[in-house]
């Protein structure tokens, strides 16, 4: 290669380094990994572990200063307290429902984008799906507050059919959260569908399979990892939310609120860390289950 030879002449030392790296796979790998791992392990994992350790400490109730006396009290409180059990159930329930709603909505629109729309329309649709991401999260949550109000647009639309707005409460929260995370679910499913070759669908049709059968037996199995990938976003983002529920969720609270109040209001970082163990545990179980599907490669 001429460029290479030119480089060889002008820059001998960089060439030697290049040869050295070419011959030493381990060194090459170490160079590639050191910076990102330094960042992720030293900043993120260390912080996370420190937080988990804090869960076993205690706090001076008045001054809010953490004492390093070891105790299982916080963890026991969280595991046995009826408040935490109720809120955990509510939160997981909301997160699952939001995930289901998002997938059900994402499937047809992603299918239309990937398999029906023309290339041009496809591009427009991707923009249309991505654009709402730029209107701030808070602004959108407050917009849903307007929509769900008892004389809001929702009421105005469903009233002729004898319906009523759900108002502020759990249904409102589920609607708003599904809305907020929808683009994050549509995109991986759309990308997944793009990867399903059209020829495969045609072959299935030629062999006499009905559309429904093709969808069920060919598309869905191929799409499964993409669906799971999308679900990780809607599920985990919902699991940690504490702002939307305040805006449209009525008087209800979620796990995020409990963590937030214990950090902010009660200044009880140890208890907050103990509560944080719940979503961490749930996410780990979730990731372990879904990693078998290969979904983690489709995020």
């Amino acid at each position, binding site marked *: 290669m001429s460029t290479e030879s030119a480089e060889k002449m002008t820059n001998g030392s960089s060439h030697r380094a290049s040869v050295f790296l070419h011959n030493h796979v381990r060194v090459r790998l170490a160079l590639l990994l050191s910076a990102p791992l330094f960042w992720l*392990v030293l900043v993120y*994992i*260390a*912080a996370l*572990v*420190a937080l988990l*350790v*804090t869960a076993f*400490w205690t706090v*001076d*109730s*008045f*001054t*809010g*200063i*953490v*004492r*390093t*006396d070891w105790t299982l009290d916080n963890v026991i409180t969280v595991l046995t307290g009826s*408040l935490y059990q*109720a*809120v955990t159930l509510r939160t997981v329930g909301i997160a699952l429902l939001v995930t289901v709603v998002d997938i059900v909505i994402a499937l047809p629109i992603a299918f239309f984008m990937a398999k029906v729309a023309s290339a041009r329309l496809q591009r427009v649709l991707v923009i249309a799906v991505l654009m709402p991401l730029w209107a701030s999260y808070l602004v959108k949550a*407050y917009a849903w*507050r307007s929509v769900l*109000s*008892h*004389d*809001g647009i929702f009421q105005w639309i469903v009233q002729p059919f004898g319906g009523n707005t759900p*108002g*502020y409460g759990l249904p409102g929260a589920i609607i708003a959260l599904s809305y907020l995370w929808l683009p994050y679910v549509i995109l991986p499913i759309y990308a997944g569908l793009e990867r399903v070759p059209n020829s495969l669908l045609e072959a299935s049709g030629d062999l006499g399979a009905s559309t429904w059968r093709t969808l069920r037996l060919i598309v869905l199995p191929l799409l499964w990892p993409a669906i799971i990938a999308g679900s990780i976003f809607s599920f985990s983002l919902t699991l940690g939310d504490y702002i939307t529920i*305040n*805006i449209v*969720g*009525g*008087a*209800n*609270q979620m796990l995020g609120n*409990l963590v937030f*109040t*214990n*950090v*902010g*209001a*009660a*200044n*009880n970082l140890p208890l907050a860390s103990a509560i944080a163990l719940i979503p961490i545990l749930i996410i780990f179980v979730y990731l*372990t289950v879904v*990693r*078998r599907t*290969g979904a*983690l*490669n489709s995020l």
Partner: protein
Amino acid sequence: MNRSMTLRRSGVVIALAVATVASFTLTACGTSAGNPSSTGLKQATKLGKNEKTVSILAWPGYVEDGSNDPKVNWVKPFEDQTGCQVTSKVYGTSDEAFSLMKSSNYDVVAASGDLTLRLIASGQVAPVNTKLIPSYKNVYPFLKLKAWNSVDGQSYGIPHGYGANLLAYNTKDFATAPTSWDVVFDKSSANKGKVTAYDSPIYIADAAMYLMAHQPDLGIKNPYALDTKQLAAAVTLLKGQRANIGEYWSDYLKTTQSFETGDTVVGTTWQVIKNSMSAKTPVDVTVPSEGVTGWSDTWMIGAKSKSPNCAYAWLNYIASPKVNAQATEYFGEAPSNSEACKYVSAGDCEAYHAGDADYASKIWYWTTPIAKCLDGRTNVKCTDYSQWTTAWQEIKG
């Protein structure tokens, strides 16, 4: 692909173990295990030359530098007069302010009564020598050296403004003004799903104040001094209320909105929220017979302040009649300076009952509940703020 998915456990375990040891060693020396004492801090005895900057932590609307509304700016004149450049941060709740004070060293903080004692006890704020603050002499006497801004006769700050947690009601649903808080407690089911309450543990005091009048046998003398049994009674009352709550509020856009749309028809509010509702909103406010809780905010100085002189300069400036009038009027509360009413818009001081010592005395000002009963009882231990917080979470469920 699937083969590579198998988790190599040992790798993870080693990584976690390394991280654990590293972080544990670090954390152990980073977190203080000692017991802080608030008495170690000394008040300043004289002032020096102003530093270059001062950082201020305050409620929204307390430190306006024109960035929100070019016409509302009392920071610029201060910077011009003193040479102290102001940076400010606002907070939404007293609890948020507490954690912010602990995390960053602000020079000045505007604290409500449910925050002040916590700041003092944790050594976050320094005693304030009021002799160094000329504006202090005009502050209403009924706000000076109170339980929420002083300890054992030592002042910890300068009163700013005060106000009451009023009862707001929709005039379409209530033909006459309710005379009792029972509309949000014992009779709240009449407006199920349309009742609101302030989202903070300190709201437990509202229930306690109600019980003072309606269950005298509980023996509550001060809504911020509750023993275990009295707290339990308040919690029961609030759990009953919870069933009828539409939503709790802590930011006032939310509560203004829902009163305007009618999603909420009755509940606690502040005068400033009532003022910000559009004129034709059928909502009015009242002081029920049981009395009201309220706040009296205090400007305090951070214990670790690197700009104490600028901090004193700010305290003196913000408590001076004209600025005190400007700031409290913008926020919507009564000023603390007896000369301030000369500068506020006509009718405002009357609306907030400024200087009305009799009205002010009816307000149970937010005070941090502590184990040592604030009502002077020594035979029992009172419940402290952390117990109130736990109780509050359980009430919300």
